[in-house]
């Protein structure tokens, strides 16, 4: 589904990603962990098409298509979704109008008729129940005045509405209490199928008790330096990152 080859990216002239290689297949969940500043969020941003990041080398193929030249909206229309680490508040834009516009522009791109209001509302109801989000929140302007947990839940709600093929959750668990974490994880698990895939970017092993990854990768200093199964996350929780850093830095020097 997603093939990343030797991806290098920099921001403001400073190289952050220094050769990422990653292969993700349909039905898989990959966790990307790593210490602060290792490039986790940069990877998520580059995949979603954030313009301030410059890709200097490498390729990203998504469902057989090179996506690096696509605009962010076209990546979304191809089926990519980024749950933001810091969801943006947009006063004056209603969640309803926002989601309907997004959904119908995605449908148009795929050659489908726009969804009518009745179907749209029905879909909203269904997905709201799935991620246990309150109608009151949806009635407000997009993310405006939402608590941290409400914003993250709204990201998962949007994901449920747009049904991406590949979802990237960028530290969706940061700052969530255990109840909110359970709800978010529960939403992700219910949306999982053999046809879609998920990348979970996180600091904390705790999330991985609820969203069980097939693979765990450790990102350090712009490269994936170690990959394994879910037991690697437990090992990291136990031992921290120093042993990995030492290993890598030792090899390099």
């Amino acid at each position, binding site marked *: 589904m997603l093939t990343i080859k030797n991806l290098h990216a920099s921001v403001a002239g400073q190289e952050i990603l220094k050769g990422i290689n990653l292969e993700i297949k349909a039905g898989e969940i990959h966790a990307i962990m790593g210490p602060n500043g290792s490039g986790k969020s940069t990877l998520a941003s580059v995949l979603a098409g954030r313009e301030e990041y410059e890709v200097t080398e490498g390729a990203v193929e998504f469902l057989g298509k090179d996506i690096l030249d696509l605009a962010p*909206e076209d990546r979304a229309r191809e089926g990519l979704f980024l749950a933001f680490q810091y969801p943006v508040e947009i006063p004056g834009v209603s969640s309803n109008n926002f989601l309907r516009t997004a959904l119908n522009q995605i449908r148009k791109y795929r050659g489908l008729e726009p969804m009518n209001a009745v179907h749209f509302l029905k879909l909203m109801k269904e997905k709201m129940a799935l991620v246990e989000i309150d109608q009151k929140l949806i009635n407000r302007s997009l993310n405006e005045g939402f608590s941290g947990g409400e914003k993250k839940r709204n990201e998962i709600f949007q994901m449920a509405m747009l049904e991406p093929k590949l979802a990237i959750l960028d530290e969706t668990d940061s700052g969530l209490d255990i109840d909110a974490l359970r709800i978010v994880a529960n939403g992700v698990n219910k949306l999982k199928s053999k046809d879609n895939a998920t990348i979970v970017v996180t600091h904390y092993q705790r999330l991985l008790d609820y969203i069980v990854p097939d693979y765990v990768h450790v990102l350090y200093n712009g490269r994936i330096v170690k990959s394994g199964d879910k037991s690697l996350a437990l090992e990291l929780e136990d031992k921290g990152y120093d042993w990995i850093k030492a290993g890598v830095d030792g090899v390099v020097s």
Partner: protein
Amino acid sequence: MIEQLKDSFKTFETQLNGASKSSWHQLRKKAMVTLESNGLPKAKDEEYRYTHLGRILDKKFQFTDLSMAGRDSNHGENILFHDADAHHIYINNGIVDKEKIKSLAVNGLIMLTLQEASDKYPKDIDAHLGNHSNNNKDAFTALNTIFSYEGVFIKVEKNALIDKPILLHYSTTKQLKQPVYQSRNLIIVESGAQVEMIESYTSHEEEEYFSNHVSEIVIGANAHLNYYKLQNQSNKTYHVDNTYIAQAKDSVVTSYIFTLEGKIIRNNLNFALEDQNCETHLFGLYVAHGDNHIDNHTVVNHKFPNCFSNQIYKGILDDTAKAVFNGKIFVQPDAQKTNAFQSNKNILLTDTASMNSKPQLEIWADDVKCSHGCTTGQLDEEQLFYLRSRGISKSSARGMLLHAFVDDVLDKIKIDFLHDFVGAEMNNRLD
């Protein structure tokens, strides 16, 4: 230019016949003296620093023939809201449609040309005409006072509730040379009365003209006025609007200015809160493109305690458009317990558009709540990216953010057909 104006004034006087002895004409003479000593605004004039009107007008327009002779009063081009449920008054090329305005009279509402009113309601004219405006402070007010002859007189009588809006259609038809129009309104809303008014400005798209408009509006105790100006002229329009509103106690006035097009537009909106417990709202929205130049100056003068004023002006500037906002709030020594707020927000869509925003608060009382804020910036890149990352195109995302920006002002419009029109114009411009 002043010499030209003096000659023009002499010619004008000879056309007035018997009216040259009237008190109105004494106002004209005084204004001529004032203008002669002050001149038109120069480049260094602080009030017109960003809008160099004096020089432009001098170059572009002839001030030799300011008389009204030979102008037709047919309805002009591009008039909006023909079918709206309203009292329609037509002012074309500065001339009021006299027959139409007479036919409109309803209980509690007097509408006449200013000329006729000076015969029929001399007391109102003497008490108010020229008494709320300031020739010394603003040269264009003086210019209008000297030469204005035509205009609308509206009097909403005590406790009258006017069921539908009074709609003043200002329009122009094509003339041979660049004309100068000066029209003058006197509007009196007596105590306890309630009325909505719209001034809708349109023009012939090929006509280059200068219009210099003055309105004096007198609001009685406990009276209510919603007052809208829609400026939707061509990009060849030079327009100066001076509006002076005096509020008596317990009155509520809400003003709206929507500027959608114009070469140079300058609005001076002046509120004098002349007694306690006045409430004043000022909403402004300007959407400028091409080389439009839109300048809004507001003054809210709090003279007495316990008054409230709130102003929100918003602008979206594209291409090489320029806009100016200058908002003055005065809180006089006696005006304790004043609440006065002001906000001016602007979005620049290009690197070549520019905005000059200047809030000025002068507070002489010590127990007041006042605030002001102004922001000018580009569309928020984070917000744009967020919308796009959900599959929304860049142009739709921009449109959504711009709509969100103007919606809080649009939502304040209480007249449906006006709300729909301005909303639709916004859609055309922003999407």
